[in-house]
C-alpha cells in the first residue's frame, strides 16, 4: 500500500464504458481497503460524477477552479465513501475521493476558449496522491487523443484501453496502443466491453490479444441490467453476483497485482 500509482482509463472512441468501468474498478479498490482518487479529466464533456450520484448543485469546487488558480486541488476532492457504501452490502473500508470537472456551460466554454496550464494539471495529479495519501489515482479521460488524454497516458503507471468488438474500435485501439508504446507506459491492459452473448468470449480474447500484442484483462458482456441502471449507480456494488461484477473484480485483481 501507499504506492501512489496512476491508472488511466482510455478508449479511442466514445461511449465504450470508460466512466462506468473506472467508477466500478475504483470502488472495488476502496472496498479492498485502499485509498483511491478518481479524477474526471474529460473537461469538455464530464460524466463520471453521475455514477457517484452527484449533480451540478452538489459540485461546489471542481478541477476547473484549480486550473484557474481559484483553489488548491485537494479542495476539489469529494469524499464518496458514504455514497458508494450506500450502494449495497459491500463495506467500503478504504477511501474514495472524486475530483469532478465543472458542469457549468460557461466553465466548459472557458477551458475551450482560453486553454489552461497543462503543467498545473500535471502538478495536480501529483499533489492529489501526496495530499490525500492515495494508493491509486484513476484518471477517466475524454475519448480520442487530446492534450489531457495524452498527458494522462504519458504519466500513468498502468493504462487500460477499453474497446468494443467493433471494427471502428479495433482501428482506433491500434492508434492508442501505438501511442502508449511510444510513451512507454509500463503496463498496458485491454478490456473488451459490450460483447454480445453469441460471441465466443475466449476466442475473442485470443484474437484481440494477438492483434494488439497486449493482454486482455476481461471481456464484459453487453448487459441489459447494466444499461437499465443507466450510470445511476456503481453496478458491481449493487449487483455483486452479476457476471459483469465478476469481470470488474477480475480487472481490479489484475490491476492490483500489476501496479
Amino acid at each position, binding site marked *: 500500500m501507499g504506492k501512489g500509482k496512476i491508472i488511466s482509463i482510455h478508449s479511442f472512441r466514445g461511449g465504450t464504458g470508460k466512466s462506468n468501468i473506472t467508477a466500478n474498478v475504483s470502488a472495488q479498490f476502496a472496498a479492498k481497503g485502499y485509498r483511491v482518487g478518481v479524477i474526471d479529466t474529460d473537461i469538455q464533456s464530464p460524466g463520471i460524477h453521475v455514477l457517484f450520484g452527484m449533480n451540478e448543485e452538489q459540485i461546489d469546487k471542481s478541477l476547473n477552479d484549480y486550473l484557474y488558480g481559484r483553489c488548491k486541488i485537494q479542495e476539489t476532492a469529494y469524499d464518496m465513501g458514504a455514497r458508494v457504501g450506500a450502494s449495497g452490502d459491500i463495506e467500503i473500508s478504504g477511501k474514495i475521493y472524486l475530483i469532478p470537472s465543472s458542469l*457549468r*456551460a*460557461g*466553465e*466548459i*466554454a472557458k477551458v*475551450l*476558449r*482560453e*486553454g*489552461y*496550464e*497543462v*503543467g498545473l494539471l*500535471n502538478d495536480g495529479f*501529483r499533489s492529489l496522491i501526496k495530499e490525500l495519501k492515495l494508493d491509486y489515482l484513476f484518471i477517466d479521460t475524454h475519448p480520442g*487523443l487530446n*492534450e489531457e488524454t*495524452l*498527458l494522462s*497516458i*504519458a*504519466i*500513468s*503507471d498502468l493504462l487500460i484501453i477499453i474497446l468494443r468488438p467493433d471494427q471502428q474500435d479495433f482501428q482506433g485501439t491500434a492508434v492508442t496502443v501505438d*501511442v502508449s508504446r*511510444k*510513451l*512507454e507506459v*509500463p503496463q498496458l491492459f485491454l478490456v473488451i466491453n459490450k460483447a454480445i452473448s453469441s460471441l465466443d468470449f475466449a476466442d475473442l480474447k485470443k484474437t484481440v490479444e494477438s492483434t494488439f500484442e497486449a493482454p486482455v484483462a476481461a471481456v464484459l458482456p453487453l448487459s441489459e441490467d447494466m444499461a437499465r441502471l443507466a450510470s445511476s449507480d456503481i453496478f458491481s456494488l449493487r449487483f455483486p453476483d452479476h457476471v459483469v461484477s465478476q469481470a470488474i473484480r477480475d480487472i481490479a485483481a489484475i490491476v492490483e497485482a500489476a501496479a
Partner: protein
Amino acid sequence: MGIFNRIQNEIDDRENREGITPADLLELSMGLRRLMNRITREGDQTAEQAAAYMGLPADEVEDMLNNLVAKGYLERELEQDVWVYRTRFARKRGRDVPVGIWSALGKQVKDK
C-alpha cells in the same frame, strides 16, 4: 556516433520553446523520447537518477538536461543543493469557434 552525441545533436537542432505539449513527446527520436518519457512519468529526476536509467555517465546526462532546459523542454529547481529536472509543459491554447456560442454560454453563466 554514440547515443550521447546523437541526443545532444538532436537537442541542438531543435528550436527554442516555451514548454512542450504531451503530443511533442511522440515525435522525438527514441533516445531523447526515452529520457523525456522517464522525467515526465516520474514527475522529477536528478541527473544521477536519469543517468542510471539511461545507462549513461551522470556528467553527460547533466549536459543533456541543461541543454533541454535551455531549449525550453525542461525546467530545473535546486532542491537541497541538487538540481531537480521536470518537464516544462506549454499552456494548452484555446480554440476559435463561432463567437455567438461563447457569448450565449457566457450569458448563461451570468444568469446563475
